[in-house]
């Protein structure tokens, strides 16, 4: 990755378009969904899913939008993007044999690390915000009744970004110590998929990381704003992971 900002821009654009596509389809479908929500509830195969549809029914438009954009879209595509953007950040250099020329310039490792981290992090969270900010426009285009303010949408995007950044940062720290980006990506994606699967098991759902970004939490944000007790630990995980990554990169041999 010789041009991290350029690479990040294109990766972010691609992932943002995917996220936007899923969101457009979801919002265009909302009127039909609102009409048939009772049938969906009866068809839901798992108790957890029945509860989820129930939450959407009670929460109305905001619950549906939050469920589609954040719980579904960002938690799947966003998690995949977080892992893929971070896994190769440093391990990719070792893997392709460019570690030495990357480190041999008169640029501090702190700056190298920060550039890589910031480019990937921005590429990851920017689409969460800009796709979310298109929701009011899409609602007008698809004649969706109701109104969602930019303030609420921004707070929700912030909350979601905190989780994605935590996943990104942990993967980034692994990359600072690894040589095989694909291996890192597979392991972290397996663990995050497992976490998502846990969410769907009624007895284990509270052990799932994605419980932090389910519909209930976005409904709470609409009522009470951001919950620092949830967001700050996630920011803390990111900060600690970044610090570990920095420590690992400073010790890293140019091989």
């Amino acid at each position, binding site marked *: 990755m*010789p*041009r991290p900002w350029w690479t990040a821009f294109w990766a972010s654009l691609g992932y943002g378009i995917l996220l936007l596509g899923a969101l457009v389809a979801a919002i265009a479908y909302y009127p039909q969904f609102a009409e048939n929500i009772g049938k969906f509830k009866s068809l839901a195969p798992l108790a957890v899913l029945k509860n989820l549809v129930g939450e959407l029914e009670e929460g109305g438009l905001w619950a549906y939008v939050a469920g589609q954009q954040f719980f579904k879209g960002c938690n799947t595509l966003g998690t995949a993007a977080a892992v893929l953007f971070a896994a190769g950040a440093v391990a990719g250099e070792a893997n*392709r*044999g*460019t*570690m*030495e*020329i*990357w*480190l*041999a*310039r*008169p*640029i*501090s*490792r702190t700056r190298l690390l920060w550039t890589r981290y910031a480019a990937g992090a921005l590429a990851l969270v920017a689409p969460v915000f800009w796709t979310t900010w298109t929701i009011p426009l899409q609602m007008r285009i698809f004649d969706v009744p109701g109104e969602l303010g930019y303030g609420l949408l921004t707070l929700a995007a912030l909350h979601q970004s905190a989780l994605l950044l935590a996943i990104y940062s942990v993967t980034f720290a692994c990359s600072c110590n690894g040589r095989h980006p694909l291996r890192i990506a597979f392991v972290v994606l397996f663990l995050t998929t497992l976490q998502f699967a846990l969410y769907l098991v009624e007895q284990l759902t509270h052990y799932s990381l994605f419980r932090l970004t389910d519909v209930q939490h976005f409904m709470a944000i609409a009522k009470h704003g951001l919950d620092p007790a949830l967001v700050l630990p996630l920011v803390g995980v990111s900060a600690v992971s970044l610090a570990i990554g920095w420590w690992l990169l*400073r010790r890293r*041999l*140019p091989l």
Partner: protein
Amino acid sequence: MGGGGQGASDGVAIEARGLARSFGERQALLPLDLDVRYGEITGLVGPNGSGKTTLQRLLVGLLPPSAGRARIGGVELVGEGVAVRRVASYAPGEIGHYGELDLEAHLRFLVAGRESRCLGRALEIVGRLGLPRGVRVRGFSHGMKRQMLFAAAMAPDVAVRILDEPTEGLDPSKRAEVLAILEEDLASAKGPRAILLSSHHLGEIDRIAARLVFLERGRLLADERAADLARRARRLLRIRFDEQAPRERLLAAIDRLGASSLGWQGSTVAIELACDDPRPFLAGLVSQKDLPPPEEIAYGRLSLAELYRDLYGVEGL
């Protein structure tokens, strides 16, 4: 020019004291003292695994030393060595590259963090070496990639250049061009400049280096001026005797005649004479009738590889 600070006044470009590096149990570089002076090319030679690359990585801060200290271009090597890399450029021996970039973009990456005119200078050098500018680096041969790294290391206006086998994989004409660029670079430097160059091509090191530093198994075996080495080479004599020749008596005779034996390789003994003229020694040896007659006598300028083999008993160069 960047650098040339404290070191420029005492003429020392690279000063290492007790510099050592180990990887776990393996000692890659034993504690080493080294002074590389401005205004000359210093050749770093030794067989594979002798610690040449480790030493060069240590000197530019890519590897932290296990012990010791170093000052490069007047800058103390501390931490990750960013300050050192501002006064010293480095061409790695490992050919890492970003295949998706074309030559100009790749050079821009390699000289990032340097002065702005560095790219133009690097492009001049690759032009002189005949590398195609608009072609992606993934289509380059091994030698072309090596030349690209060389150009990037030669472009900055720095006090010290550390080059790890810059001619490896190049054809003879390109090797000659690289050596010419090195000599011109030293001659045309506006400020103090030193070049530390490692190579497996001992002939070329012999040609351009004013000083030779010889490493073997992480140990500094010799550090001498090329002229002194050449003088020693003029005093080297190799004599082959019959397999059954009495070695003890031969060695005693050599000692009596004022020369010193450097050891046997097979049935050939290497001898370092006390003076440049071999005739008195040979006359003295032949006059000793109790000794077997020599089967072959080799005298004259030996190759660097032969010299190191004879002087220090190191094979594999």
